[in-house]
């Protein structure tokens, strides 16, 4: 048994951390936070050059062909650095959807562009409030064109293309849904940026008016692909969340060591020590659940649905917990714009929702465990 990343994977993590600490310091994140740029283009290019965008894309499609464990390692570092780039939408959602359901031609068209940083992609699934559910999809696909409104779409305002879930039938069953690839720069597409709590990652509303759409995968099998994509993305996003949680914990720990009150470091007060200990506990539990998710993802194990839900729940909780209590450890200073604490708090609360909320995944986990139990 070796329930750990390999030395090569750890080396890749070190490289990614070094690269991001140089190319994506908090100052760079703040450029996007403060609205000076929609995302960090230089960083995006750099990530492509490092081979990180295509790490899990096969070599024949322009990627590094490494695998999903390597992608998990990169994801953690992206989360740690709060990288303000459309990594998750492009790599976890769009690329994975194409990898799962794309034709060879589609893979040839999009995957190399993703790996090279030339195409930003996303998944357009949601239509207003609510969680992933076929019932909630109202956008229609008819005669090769889409009509309707998607909202929110992560990184929708900067994306070149989107994988869109649309209704192709009216049987009232899951087989009513199919996926399409839409070139967002083409006609019939209107994109509007939406303000969201995480100012370092954009959200958008996309309106399709007879927008040309190319089917992705078999008609009527869209929902099954969506489910697979969400499970994979859940594991990858969980690594981002654990990276963020760890960094928030570290920030809190460092501050507790440095900051003096009542003549001694605040980290010598049990209230602060134990708060940090509890943050460590939740971050550790999340990391361990994530490792299991990574194993299931990389081996395409039958346990993936359950492992993905567990990783997602645990990492969401840990990041929210660590981010909010990092502010608390910092006291008043943690509540200033100047300190970085709030960037983690914003991100923690935003990524908790993007693939479906905590409640949604809680329910999904028990459903999956129950099925396994019955089987």
């Amino acid at each position, binding site marked *: 048994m070796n329930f750990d990343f390999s030395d090569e994977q750890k080396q890749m993590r070190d490289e990614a951390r070094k690269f991001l600490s140089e190319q994506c310091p908090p100052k760079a994140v703040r450029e996007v936070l403060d609205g000076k740029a929609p995302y960090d283009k230089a960083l995006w290019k750099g990530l492509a050059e490092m081979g990180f965008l295509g790490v899990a894309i096969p070599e024949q499609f322009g990627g590094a062909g490494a695998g999903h464990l390597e992608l998990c390692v990169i994801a953690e570092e992206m989360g740690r650095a709060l990288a303000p780039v459309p990594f998750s939408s492009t790599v976890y959602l769009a690329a994975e959807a194409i990898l799962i359901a794309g034709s060879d031609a589609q893979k040839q068209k999009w995957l190399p562009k993703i790996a090279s940083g030339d195409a930003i992609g996303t998944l357009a699934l949601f239509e207003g409030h609510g*969680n992933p559910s076929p019932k909630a999809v109202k956008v229609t696909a008819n005669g090769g064109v889409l009509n309707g409104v998607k909202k*929110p779409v992560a990184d929708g305002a900067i994306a070149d293309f989107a994988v869109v879930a649309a209704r192709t039938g009216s049987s009232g069953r899951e087989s009513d849904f199919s996926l399409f690839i839409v070139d967002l720069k083409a006609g019939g597409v209107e994109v509007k940026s939406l*303000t*969201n709590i995480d100012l370092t990652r954009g959200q958008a509303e996309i309106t399709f008016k007879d927008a040309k759409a190319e089917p992705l995968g078999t008609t009527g099998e869209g929902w099954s692909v969506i489910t697979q994509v969400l499970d994979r993305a859940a594991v990858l996003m969980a690594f981002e969340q654990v990276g963020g949680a760890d960094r928030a914990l570290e920030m809190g720990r460092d501050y507790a060591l440095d900051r003096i009150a009542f003549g001694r470091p605040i980290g010598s007060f049990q209230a602060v020590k134990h708060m940090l200990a509890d943050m460590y506990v939740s971050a550790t539990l999340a990391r361990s659940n994530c490792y299991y998710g990574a194993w299931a993802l990389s081996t395409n194990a039958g346990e993936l649905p359950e492992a993905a839900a567990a990783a997602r729940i645990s990492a969401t909780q840990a990041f929210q917990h660590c981010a909010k209590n990092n*502010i608390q450890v910092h006291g008043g200073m943690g509540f200033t714009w100047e300190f970085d604490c709030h960037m983690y708090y914003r991100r923690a609360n935003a990524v908790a*929702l993007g693939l479906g*909320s905590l409640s949604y995944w809680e329910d999904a986990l028990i459903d999956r465990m129950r099925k396994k139990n019955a089987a």
Partner: protein
Amino acid sequence: MNFDDTPQEGAFRAEAKAWIAANAPKQYEEELRKASLGRFQLKGANILEVAKAWQKKKADAGWACLHWPKEYGGRGSSPIERVIWQQEEGPFGRLSSMFIIGHGMCGPTMMAFAGEEQKRSYLPPLASGEKIWCQLFSEPAGGSDVAGLRTRAEKHGDEWVINGQKIWTSGAHYSDYGILLTRTDPDVPKHKGLTMFFLDMKSPGVEVRPIKQASGASDFNEVYFTDVRIPDSQRLGTVNDGWNVSLTTLMNERMSIGAGVSTGFPELFDFCNSLMLEDGPAIENRAVRSKLANWAVKASGLKYTSMRAISALSKGERPGPENSIGKLVAGSMIQDVAAYALDLQGAAGALSGIEDAEVAGKFQAMLLRAPGTRVEGGTDEIMRNIIAERVLGLPGDIRVDKDVPFNKIPTKGRN
């Protein structure tokens, strides 16, 4: 046990109600009622101006600072009358937020330590809202350790010269006066070398800079002092006795009960009553109901704890540190409530624009503002210490700096 007014209380309530009905700025009532943590605005109006006008109107009719003596601009009311007023004032009371520091902390401190002439001159315009006061205690290096402040006051003849920096000063940018806690002797242990003053915020050398908060708003300021001169006549209390003076101020802060702490529960309950989830109304979902029930009993527990405190007040008992539970419970609760409201919205819960987000982004604003409530006016940890020590009688934390000269206390944890 009853919620009924005594005849006198009833008469007072009727008078207050009638006056408010006739005089309150009704055009803002709806917006004031809908305000929630992190979301408070009056469309097309300047809140400060509206607030000042309402306060002046109240003062002119004898409804300002009810519990203050008449000669200082108050009404000489009993504590319970003040509570009844607050109940009747309802949402219009939210317009008092910029006066809370002045009326609740600076005024009482002036009353206890200023000279009679100063009181007659400074207090009435403070009561009427014509002059706004702020409180200058907190410092970057201080935090929960208020007495660890470093702003120096040095005596030069009949004046004191102030140098240093304050932080978290609510309303400093629109304040006319402030009460200021300074260090006058760094060679003695920290609590023993402090002195309190009041000063004109327009004095030369005072510079106010807004602090941008994590939420993006700016409710607080940093205030820099560069060779600011304060006449010795504006000293409050004796030299080096500032810590005791400040305790009066802080004790009065706790007396301000009934102002009410926001838990976010009523907003969440309303939201759940109208929200449809994938599988039906949110309010019929057992998981939602379980969460709501747990928050409901905290919210009602706080409400009736406050009622009990008011009853004690009406019997002439002094409300104790028991009131610390309000902020402690409400602070982390509103943070959890806001996060859960977003969770119920699914992916769209991240949207925060008034146009795009559910219920105009109320819960998103609440979430971003909430971390501040767990810190301002005493962190959760300080609140638990207060309850443990002053209510339960447990020992204080070990104070390693208690007998150490202030200038010998370390300032950095790691080298």
